[in-house]
């Protein structure tokens, strides 16, 4: 069995948002929609203040609340653990948006323009309109096209850049690592063995596939 997950080392993340930009460039999401975000947490009060940068997005949960809620089976779990959306089946009821505790989903009925209505769509927006995503649910796919291309061509997701999500490829601090958690020799399994980690909202028992490393063991 395979289950692809993302590991974020929050000691390494510097909040540069390169992953956010790489995701946007790769997936051509509409203005205002970010499948990969980096949150900026400030903890404590002056002078004892700490800051943490936390990459977030779809957690590709093992027990995905969005897939349970979806009345159309447009949201479904693939055998490799990725939670995918069939845009042509989705009715845009937004129930999955309410079911997701990670605020990872969006529905865009009328896409914003990058520079506002007055300037219309830019050339790059016209090239990738993604009309199939209009008025239906959308979210991070772990760049599933790249993974499918890679596995079909003998590449290893998380190791070979052509088979790895754009955010993990682009990370300047090597904070984001993608891989198969079911493979004990994978990069993510090694990181999880050697580090203390947490999953966001673990108390909700979604079986999140996004792990945050916070200390070396």
């Amino acid at each position, binding site marked *: 069995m395979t289950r692809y997950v993302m590991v974020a080392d929050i000691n390494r993340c510097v909040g540069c948002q390169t992953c956010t930009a790489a995701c946007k460039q790769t997936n051509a999401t509409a203005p205002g929609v970010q499948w990969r975000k980096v949150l900026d947490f400030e903890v*404590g009060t002056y002078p004892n203040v700490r800051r943490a940068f936390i990459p977030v997005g779809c957690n590709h949960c093992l027990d995905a609340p969005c897939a349970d809620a979806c009345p159309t089976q447009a949201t479904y779990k693939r055998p490799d653990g990725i939670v995918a959306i069939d845009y042509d089946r*989705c*009715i845009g009821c937004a129930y999955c948006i309410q079911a997701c505790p990670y*605020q990872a989903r969006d529905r865009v009925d009328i896409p914003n323009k990058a520079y506002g209505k007055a300037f219309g769509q830019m050339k790059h927006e016209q090239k990738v309109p993604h009309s199939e995503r209009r008025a239906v649910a959308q979210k991070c796919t772990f760049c599933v096209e790249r993974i499918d291309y890679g596995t079909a061509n003998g590449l290893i997701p998380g190791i070979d850049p052509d088979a790895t999500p754009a955010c993990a490829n682009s990370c300047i601090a090597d904070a984001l690592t993608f891989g198969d958690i079911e493979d004990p020799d994978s990069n993510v399994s090694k990181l999880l063995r050697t580090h203390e980690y947490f999953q966001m*909202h673990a108390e909700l028992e979604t079986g999140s596939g996004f792990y945050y490393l916070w200390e070396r063991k």
Partner: protein
Amino acid sequence: MMLAPTLQKRWDWRAAGNFICGGSGSGLMIMAALLTLIGLHASGYALLASALVATGLGLVWLEIGRPLRSMNVFRNPRRSWMTREGLVATVLLPLGVLAFLSESTALSIPLLIMAAVAAALFLYAQARILHMAKGIPAWRTDAINPLIVSTGLTEGMGIVLIFAGLVQGNVAALFSGYGWILALALVFLRGAAWINYRYSLANNAPEATLQVLDRAHSVIALLGVAAPIVLLFLGKSYPAYQLPLAAAAGFFMVLCGWFCKYQIILHAAYSQGYAISHTPARGGGKPGPGLKPGWRLPQ
């Protein structure tokens, strides 16, 4: 980027309308069957009940992003309560209409009972739709189920009381038989479900959600519990004024249910927000505590 829970904007008054109309309609269908069984002439309510449920579903249809694909809603009966709600509605609506059309025939009561069973399933499905929305703490609590079911039944009884005067003898029958006791019991039950709901969220919801529910509490306690109880007792004590008193009690029973659902679905529906259980070490330092912005107590 907002870290604290934010108010959901994706389900608006149309979605709330489905829970309001669908809850009242299914509750009315159940009450119509119950009251018919205890001797009142209530099968005429079946048409109104079906119309309310259909109106609620129509409002949802107006809200979805791709209405022309709406038939896909029936594709996930194994897991989705939204699919189950839709499937039950396909049985409930025709049964309600048939029960109305067959009034004063031998088929009327069996059809009404079958419609009431479907209505009970519909009402339960509506409660579970909210319960399964894990991203909204105000909805996902177990206590939402008894609240949505009890308020639907109470609203249904309220509608019966509002229109009781349309059928000769129904008002007197309501106050002389078990009708008014049923109404009182439902008001108490909903009050208890509301208290249970608030208690379940006390340390388990975003601060903003709790503030909305705190503000709603006095309205629900006064107009949804106290007012109907007083009016129903007055109706029992003063037979000459039973018609207006029953209608007023019914009005408050319905109004409070609608208010309660509107508050929960539109105003208290803050998302989970973001949280971290640890902050990273910087330089040679140690990792620090986590943070859950927008929540009253650290979870």
